[in-house]
């Protein structure tokens, strides 16, 4: 196969550069699109974006100052250019004798909360990351285990049951299962506090707050991973090298655990990369349901406040996360695919 020979260090480097370049281009495009949505569409709908940043009794001076600070009067490409410049050189917003510095990397500045966006992102990112990673560990363990069991006991009651449960997990909206789990385990039985506590404040408190979101999120994904593991495993078990391994007299647990699992993990890893990327971008529904102060909750609030700078920042981080996650998975893939070695 082509990849056996192509994956030399130079090829990998060239590939990396190509990928990074493509990623950069994509980020630029995404910024342009988001700018378009929030600055062009409202104008088309007949709303002055500046009025969105002003309070109950909108003073014309206030509207004008916001316009000046945000540079709303400038042509859109100037606004976009200012934004790019800010990413590397920082930015200064000034109007009416008030000067606001936004240090590089300046992802914008929220006039609603008087905060630079970058600190908000770095403050909230760990919460979302912890949510995504924790849930991923859970769904990998349970999903893969259930899938393997199903494959080995193919056609059994367990197999059939697991499949229907899996479909059920996929069919329920997460805010439904999330609320149900809160009602039962937190408000009801009182087993878990299910309240977010920063990890630096109390590790056990943090753990107690994260378990329910993890489980709820993992339920959705575990179902899916079980189905996929099962199917892949079934196919792998039918392959020649497994038969060879068995013929050589290797014990069944070794065949399954060492040889079959390795091939099975490959597609699962690919999916993991995509799912993690998407989740890191903001598990909006999960974070809202469990009041987790992550990126998803921040962006939802920002959308209802029309706080464009926050939306832009989160969108960028999200896209970056998706791209990075997939890049990592692709590299990992080349490392762990057993058939590359077997050939």
């Amino acid at each position, binding site marked *: 196969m082509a990849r056996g020979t192509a994956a030399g260090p130079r090829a990998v480097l060239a590939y990396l550069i190509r990928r990074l370049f493509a990623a950069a281009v994509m980020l630029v495009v995404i910024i342009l699109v988001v700018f378009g949505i929030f600055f062009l569409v409202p104008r088309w709908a007949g*709303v002055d974006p500046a009025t969105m940043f002003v*309070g109950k009794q909108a003073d014309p001076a206030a509207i004008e100052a916001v316009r000046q600070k945000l540079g709303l009067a400038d042509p859109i490409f100037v606004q976009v250019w200012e934004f790019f410049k800010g990413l590397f050189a920082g930015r200064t917003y000034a109007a*009416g004798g008030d000067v606001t510095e936004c240090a590089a990397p300046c992802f914008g500045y929220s006039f609603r909360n008087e905060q630079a966006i970058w600190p908000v992102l770095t403050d909230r990112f760990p919460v979302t990351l912890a949510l995504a990673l924790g849930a991923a560990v859970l769904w990998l363990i349970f999903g893969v285990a259930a899938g393997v069991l199903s494959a080995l006991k193919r056609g059994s009651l367990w197999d059939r049951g697991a499949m229907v449960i899996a479909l059920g997990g996929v069919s329920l909206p997460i805010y439904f299962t999330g609320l149900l789990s809160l009602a039962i385990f937190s408000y009801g039985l009182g087993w878990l506090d299910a309240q977010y506590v920063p990890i630096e404040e109390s590790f056990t408190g943090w753990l107690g707050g994260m378990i329910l979101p993890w489980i709820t999120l993992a339920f959705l994904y575990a179902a899916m991973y079980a189905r996929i593991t099962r199917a892949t495993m079934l196919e792998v078990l039918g392959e020649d090298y497994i038969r060879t391994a068995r013929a050589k007299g290797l014990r069944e647990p070794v065949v399954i655990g060492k040889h079959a699992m390795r091939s099975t993990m490959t597609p699962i890893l690919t999916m993991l990369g995509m799912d993690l990327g998407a989740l890191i971008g903001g598990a909006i529904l999960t974070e809202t349901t469990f009041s987790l102060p992550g990126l998803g909750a921040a962006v939802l609030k920002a959308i209802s406040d029309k706080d464009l700078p926050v939306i832009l920042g989160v969108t960028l981080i999200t896209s970056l996360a998706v791209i990075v996650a997939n890049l990592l998975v692709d590299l990992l893939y080349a490392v762990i695919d057993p058939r590359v070695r077997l050939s």
Partner: protein
Amino acid sequence: MTTQRTTGRRKQAAAAAAVVAALLSTAACGGGNDDDGGSKSGAAGFNAANNKVAQASLAKKGGELKFAGAQDADSWDTTRGYYGFAWNFMRYYSRTLVTGKAEPGAKGAEVTPDLATSTAKISDDGKTYTYTLRDGVTWEDGKPITSKDVKYGIERVWAQDVLSGGPVYLKDVLDPKGEYPGPYKDKSADKLGLKAIETPDDKTIVFKLPAANSDFEDILGLASAAPVRQDKDTKSKYGLKPFSSGPYKFQSYTPNKKLVLVRNENWKQSSDPIRKAYPDKISLTLFTNANDMDQRLINGDYDLDIGQTGLSPQGRTTALKQHKGNLDNPVSGYIRYAVFPQSVKPFDNIHCRKAVIYGADHESLQTARGGPVAGGDIGTNMLPPSVPGSEGQKYDPYESATTNKNGNAAKAKEELKACGQPNGFKTTIAVRNNKPVEVATAESLQASLKKVGIDVEIDQFDGAQTTGIIGSPENVKKKNYGIIIMGWGPDFPTVQGYGLPLWSGKYILESGNNNFALIKDKTIDGLFDDYVTELDEAKKTEISTEINHKVMEGGYYLPFVFEKFINWRSNRLANVYTTDNYSGQYDFVNLGLKK
């Protein structure tokens, strides 16, 4: 504490099990010891803190008072904040010359000296107000608060371009022509160039009004009149860490996440006749899921909701059934209503406006607002019960709470005929999309108007863009918003603090307009002019009543309810009372904890 929580949770366990079984089991959980009220460790009883003080003697020094919230303040900068709960909370870290009394109900709205030694010495036909500052009033770094700090704090209101968002009454009254450019553009060296305020010495401050305004002391009681020290003014970022003049100071604040106040060691109890400062620490935790927040209040994890706009339906039901003793049911001072812009045809005709008022099912609208307890009494006129001059349901020109409470189709048809639209007409209701209860009232209105032939479409607009969408008369006309659903509460409880922006022809603005009906009535404007120059309280009350009558006779408004809330107070809270100064909210500044 621990034991109470367990019992609470056990009860909840039964309820939650019921969710799973899809059974309506809450009835089985009803009753319980919580209702008895008045117990020292438990809840004070239903309405125990509504217009009266609950468990004042149980308040002890110390502890952490825990607020929960579903929404952060618009700004914690005293100049910029406009949310009622923010003003209430600001009393923890900011003082004003005068403020509302620390007493329950209507008394709370009466002005009393705070930084000043007494209320104003008024001279020159109500155009000069003189105050003397108390001894021993200090900032959080121990330096004394001077009259110049007060002046500077007030001057910040003029810097609307930088410090937007807050009320601008001070600017309108002291400098109606807008001559002063604000402290950031002030050419004078000390940045104290505002002519209307004089500070002959550090203890004295004199306000010289160009024209008398009989509510001026009420305006000085607003948080926007709080002192700000020039060297601590971080301008637009001041709200992230205001410099404290009150008993507490900011320890940490992350917008939309958490706010923590700790004691300001330099504040002296002897210098402050208002604030008791019971807790050692005050925290505010913000939630994104309102149902989750209510549940945590009920579980006892938090003491009260900072928003003070009532429990959401689920929490309300649970609390009413199981913890009635923890609830108060105050009148909020808000009126929820529909208003008819005269620029949109056929609402230029008074008869078409009246047709809608008669066609509406007022009881259905009340149910949509949450019913008589959680929503409030049927609104019959436009003056809130907390405002002097209000007559409550006694003034009911359209018999909305009595004969016509389910709508009067015959009268509506009559008015339609008089309006020249005998077969009804089509129009659009504009309603904020982020207020489910308002959407419910729109749906109710839609359903009842359909019966008299008025066909309405509901347009949910973005609640974050209220000023830009319905605040622009041009846009209202363009979008054909014949009916706008809104609510309004007094900034300070007088007819001026409530009705001036809504009913005065001078307040029709191109953007940020609140006179949605576009009322331009010489009689009403004249009455407002009389009001601001009238210094006699009884006569002021009389004028207020008359303004209300004129507004109602014009048929510009369809009031839904005199709003009521069901607010939660934890078992730990002591010295709790509602105050009209902050629209029926608990008076935050004197809340204490039991040990």
